[in-house]
C-alpha cells in the first residue's frame, strides 16, 4: 500500500507521468514526496499497464525525477462531520483557521454519485429572498440551481450576500446551513464575504472552502466537489437545508481548460474541453431534494461572463444545465439601480411549481407575465423613441414606455438591506401595473383584477 515509486519519466505542466507501477485505479488519490521534504497531492487521470498520468493539485513546482509517488489505493475522499459548520477550509479540505482537524463521522467520495431521477422530489418550496426581481419574477425554490450571470465590476457579490442573509422559507423555522466555496477569487473578495458572514453571525452556520486566486489552479477542480460533498452530507444525513454558493464558475472553467491543454486534448469551443458540459453538469446537478428526506441542497453560483457575453461557452453551457439564471446588467448598474438585475434574460424554470395559491399568491404568475410583457415592450419602445421622439408614439405606447421606467425605479430598485416580503413585492407590482390602462392587462384574469387592482380592491 505504502510503496513509493521513483519512476517519474515526464513532468509537463500540472501533469506527471510514471512507469512500472503496480496496477493503479483510475481517479485514485496520489501523494507525492518532494526531495525537500514537502508533500503534494494529485489524482490519477489515465492508468494503463505501462504508464500512469497524474495531475498534481498544488502544481508541479519543485518536482523532479527524484520525487517519490505513493498511490493511496482510494479515490479522493472528504472527511465529513457536523462539526464542519463554522470552519474555514482550504480548497482541498485542510483546515485554514488554525483549528483542529475535523474528526470525521464519515469519509465520502468527493465525486459523489448521480442522484436517481426516480428518487428526486420535484422542488416546490418557495424561498423568499427579499429581492423583488427574484421573488416576483424569477422565483427561487428549494433544491434549485440558479446561478447569477454577471460581469466584472458588477455587484454580484453584494447580491449573493443579500440572498444568503435574507433567504428563508416563509413560515418555517428549519435547520439551515451555508456552504461557501471560493474558486480563484481574490483575497480581497474572500475577505468581503468572510466579514459579512462574521458580522451577521452566518459563519457559525457555514462551511467555507477557500481556493484563492494565487492558489494552484488545479486545486480548483476539487474545491467545488468538496463543497458539494459537505453540502450533501449536511442535507441528507443531518436534515439541513443547505444553500451552496460557488464563486466563480468562470475560474473553475479556466482551470478545466488549463488541464485539458496540459493533457493535449482535442479542444472544443474556444479551447474549452469538449466534456465541459458533462463536467459542469456533475457539479450543478448536485442540487435537489430527495423523496422522504428532510434536507435539501440549493445552489446559487456566481459566474462572470467574459466580456458580458452570454453566448460565451461558460454561461452558455451553464444555462443549459441550471434551472434558469439571474442576469446582472451593466446598463442598469450604470443607471445607479441596485440590484441591477435585468429580468428579461433572467429566468427561473422552477418558478411555476413554487408560486400560486397556497405557496405565494394566486395572482403571482399572471402579474409576473404581465410585467414581463409590459417591460419588454417598453424597452423596445425606448429604442424607437431615440429615433422618432416621444411625441410620435401613440397614447398606448407612451403609457407602456412610462411603465418600463416605473418598473425599473419602483420594482427593480431596492435597498441593500431592504427585505421585501412576497406580499410587498406583489403590492409594488400592482401599484405600477395600475398605471397602465386596464385594457392592456391582457395577461391577467378578470377575477384577479377585481381582487387585487388598487382601483377595484374593496377595502
Amino acid at each position, binding site marked *: 500500500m505504502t510503496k513509493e515509486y521513483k519512476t517519474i519519466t515526464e513532468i509537463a505542466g500540472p501533469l506527471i507521468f510514471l512507469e512500472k507501477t503496480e*496496477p*493503479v*485505479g*483510475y*481517479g485514485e488519490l496520489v501523494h507525492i514526496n518532494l526531495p525537500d521534504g514537502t508533500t503534494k497531492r494529485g489524482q490519477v487521470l*489515465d*492508468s*494503463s*499497464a505501462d504508464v500512469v498520468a497524474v495531475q498534481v493539485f498544488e502544481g508541479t513546482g519543485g518536482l523532479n525525477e527524484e520525487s517519490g509517488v505513493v498511490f493511496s489505493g482510494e*479515490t479522493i475522499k472528504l472527511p465529513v462531520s457536523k462539526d464542519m459548520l463554522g470552519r474555514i477550509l482550504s480548497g482541498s479540505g485542510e483546515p485554514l483557521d488554525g483549528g483542529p482537524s475535523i474528526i470525521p463521522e464519515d469519509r465520502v467520495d468527493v465525486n459523489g*454519485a*448521480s*442522484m*436517481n*431521477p*426516480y*428518487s*428526486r422530489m*420535484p422542488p416546490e418550496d418557495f424561498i423568499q429572498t427579499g429581492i423583488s426581481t427574484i421573488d416576483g419574477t424569477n422565483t427561487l425554490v428549494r433544491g*434549485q440551481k440558479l446561478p447569477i450571470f454577471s460581469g466584472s465590476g458588477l455587484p454580484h457579490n453584494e447580491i449573493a450576500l443579500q440572498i444568503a442573509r435574507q433567504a428563508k422559507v416563509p413560515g418555517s423555522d428549519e435547520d439551515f446551513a451555508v456552504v461557501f466555496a471560493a474558486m480563484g477569487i481574490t483575497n480581497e473578495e474572500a475577505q468581503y464575504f468572510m466579514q459579512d458572514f462574521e458580522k451577521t453571525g452566518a459563519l457559525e452556520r457555514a462551511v467555507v472552502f477557500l481556493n484563492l486566486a494565487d492558489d494552484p489552479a488545479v486545486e480548483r477542480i476539487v474545491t467545488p466537489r468538496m463543497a458539494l460533498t459537505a453540502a450533501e452530507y449536511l442535507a441528507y444525513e443531518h436534515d439541513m437545508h443547505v444553500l451552496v454558493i460557488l464563486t466563480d464558475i468562470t475560474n473553475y472553467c479556466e482551470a478545466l481548460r488549463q488541464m485539458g491543454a496540459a493533457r493535449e486534448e*482535442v479542444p*472544443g*469551443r474556444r479551447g474549452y474541453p*469538449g466534456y465541459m*458540459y*458533462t463536467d459542469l*453538469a*456533475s457539479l450543478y*446537478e448536485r442540487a*435537489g431534494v*430527495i423523496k422522504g*428526506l428532510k434536507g435539501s441542497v440549493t445552489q446559487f453560483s456566481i459566474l462572470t461572463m467574459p466580456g458580458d457575453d452570454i*453566448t*460565451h*461557452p461558460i454561461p*452558455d*453551457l451553464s*444555462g443549459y444545465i441550471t*434551472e*434558469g*439564471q439571474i442576469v446582472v446588467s451593466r446598463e442598469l448598474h450604470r443607471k445607479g439601480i441596485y440590484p441591477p438585475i435585468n429580468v*428579461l*434574460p433572467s*429566468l427561473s*424554470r*422552477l418558478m*411555476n411549481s413554487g408560486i400560486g395559491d397556497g405557496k405565494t399568491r394566486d395572482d403571482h404568475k399572471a402579474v409576473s*407575465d404581465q410585467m*414581463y*410583457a409590459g417591460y*419588454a*415592450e417598453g424597452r423596445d419602445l425606448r429604442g*424607437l423613441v431615440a*429615433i*422618432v421622439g416621444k411625441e*410620435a*408614439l*401613440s397614447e398606448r405606447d407612451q403609457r407602456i414606455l412610462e411603465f418600463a421606467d416605473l418598473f425599473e425605479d419602483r420594482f427593480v430598485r431596492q435597498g441593500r438591506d431592504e427585505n421585501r416580503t412576497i406580499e410587498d413585492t406583489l403590492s409594488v407590482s400592482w401599484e405600477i401595473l395600475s398605471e397602465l390602462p386596464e385594457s392592456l392587462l*391582457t395577461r391577467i384574469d*378578470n377575477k384577479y383584477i377585481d381582487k387585487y387592482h388598487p382601483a377595484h380592491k374593496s377595502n
Partner: protein
Amino acid sequence: MKGEIYRVAGPVVTIMGIKPKMYDVVHVGNEGLMGEVIKIEGDKATVQVYEDTSGVKPGEPVVNTGMSLSVELGPGLLESIYDGIQRPLKVLQEQMGDFIQRGVTADGLDRERVWDFKAVASVGDVVEGGDVIGVVQETMNVEHKIMVPPTVSGTIKDVRSGDFKVDDTVCTLEDGTELSMVQKWPVRLPRPVTKKLMPTKPLITGQRILDGLFPVAKGGTAAIPGPFGSGKTVTQQQLAKWSDTDIVVYIGCGERGNEMADVLNEFPELQDPKTGRPLMERTVLIANTSNMPVAAREASVYTGITIAEYYRDMGYDVSLMADSTSRWAEAMREISSRLEEMPGEEGYPAYLSARLSEFYERAGCVHSLSGEEGSITVIGAVSPPGGDFSEPVTQNTLRIVKVFWALDAKLAQRRHFPSINWLTSYSLYTEGLSGWFGENVSPEWVSLRNNAMDMLQQESELQEIVQLVGSDALPENQQLILEICRMLREYFLQQNAFHPVDTYCSFDKQYKLLKSISTYGDKAMIALESGIPMSEILALESKDDLAKVKFEEDFDGVLNEVLAKMDKEFAKLGGN
C-alpha cells in the same frame, strides 16, 4: 472468454486478451461494469463504459457477453422509467438507494409480474417474423400484441392462453423454437418493416401554433432548436402530454434531474385527452440526466427508438420526443475525443451527420411485417450553443427533418409562449396535409391559415417601417393590419401551457378562434373603408373580450356571446 483491462481513462477503457466483435457488450473490472466495444485495434479493443470507472485498475478481468447492446421488448414497457441502457430506475432505487451506484444489473422487464396471455394464433398456423401469436392487456387502453421475432418463422406446434410471466414459453414451433413474451433486439439496428409509406395524417398536438401553422404528420420528423430558456423542454413535454398518438416514448437525454422528476411526478396525474386514463399508461420514459454516465447517454436515444419501433410494429402510432439531441451529439463528441479520433466541425466526430440521419430515418409511417399500419413521429430538441443555428448539430438536423419549429429567445423574454418564431419556422407537410384539414376541420381552414401567415409576414415588413417613423405615420388600413396581427399573436399564437383550459386546444376551438379574429378583421376593414374612424373600431369591447375566450371552460358559449356582441357593436358603428 476472459480478458483483462489494459488502460483506464475516464469512460474509455482499453481491454486485451479477448477478441470481441464491434459493439459487443462486455463487463469490465471486478464490479462487472457494463460497456460496449467501439474500436478494435490488433489484440486490443476499446470499450465505452456506461458507468463511472473511478478506482478501476489495469489487470482487472473482462468478460465478453458476445451480444450487442440490446433492449428487452415485451409487456411491462409502458409506465416504466428507464436509464439510458434500459435499467428500470425504480428497481435501481430499491437495490441501491437514492444515488446511482455502479455494477448493478437489472432486467428491463419485471420477471415476476404475471400477464394474462390470450393466444390468437392456433396450432398448425404457419407464422413468420412480425406475426401476432397472442395479446396481453398491458394497460387499460393498450393491447400489447405478442409478435414472432423478426428473425423467426415456422409452424406452431403448441400455443396456449393463460397467466404467464414474461419469459415463460407461450408458444412452441415445430422445429422446437420456444417463444416467450419477451424478445431482445439490438438497439443500433432498425427493426425491419415491409414498406415505408408517405405520411398523410397530422399529429394533433393541441398546440395552436403547431397544429395551426406548422403541422407535423404522423410518421414525420420535427426539430425544435432554441437557446436555453426559450421553452424547448416545455414544448416537448406539452407534445408528450397532448399528442394524439397511442404510445409516447420520452427520452430525457442529458437533461436536468429536477425536470425529469417533474415529468415523473406529473405524468401519472395527467389525463390522456383521448382516453381519460393517466398519461403514464401510454408512456415509456427514459431518463439519463446530464450527470449520469456519458456513454449511457449516447445509447439512450437508440434504446428509445427501438422501443418505439416495437410498438409501431404492433400497428400503433408512436411519438418519440428526444430532449435533447445536442446532448447526444455531445456524448458522441466526448467519446470520439477520448478515442483521439480526428475531429470534424467544432470537435464533433465526422460521422455526426450520418448518425443523425440514421436516427431520424427510423421515423416514418410503415406497413409492418404483419401488414399493420403504424408510425413513429420523431421530435428532437436541439440546444445550439449561444442560440446560434449555424452550428453543426442544428444544421445537420435541418437537412433531415421536415418540420422546423424555431424557438426565439426574444419571444421568450417577453413571455410570448410557446416562443416559436412564426417567420422562420416551417413545415413541409402543410401541402400534403391540406386534404385532411379540408375534410376534418373545415374547407375554409387552409385559406384561413394562409391568410394569417400572410398578415404576419406583412406585419414584419410594416414593423420595419414603424421602427423608423412610428406607427402613427402609417395609413389607417395598415395600422389595422398591425392591430389584427397583434390579436393573432396574443389571442391565437400565445398559449399558456400552465393554464388548465388553455394548455390543450382542440382543432375545433383553433378553427373557431382563428375564424373569429378573421371575422373581426373583415368587418373592421369594411367599417374603415366606409369612413368610420380607426379609434372607434379599435375601441370595441368585443375585441378585448375575444382575448380571454381561450381561457373559458365554456368556450363555445362565451365565444358566441362575444361574436354576437361584436355584430351589435359593428352595427352600431354603421358601415357593415
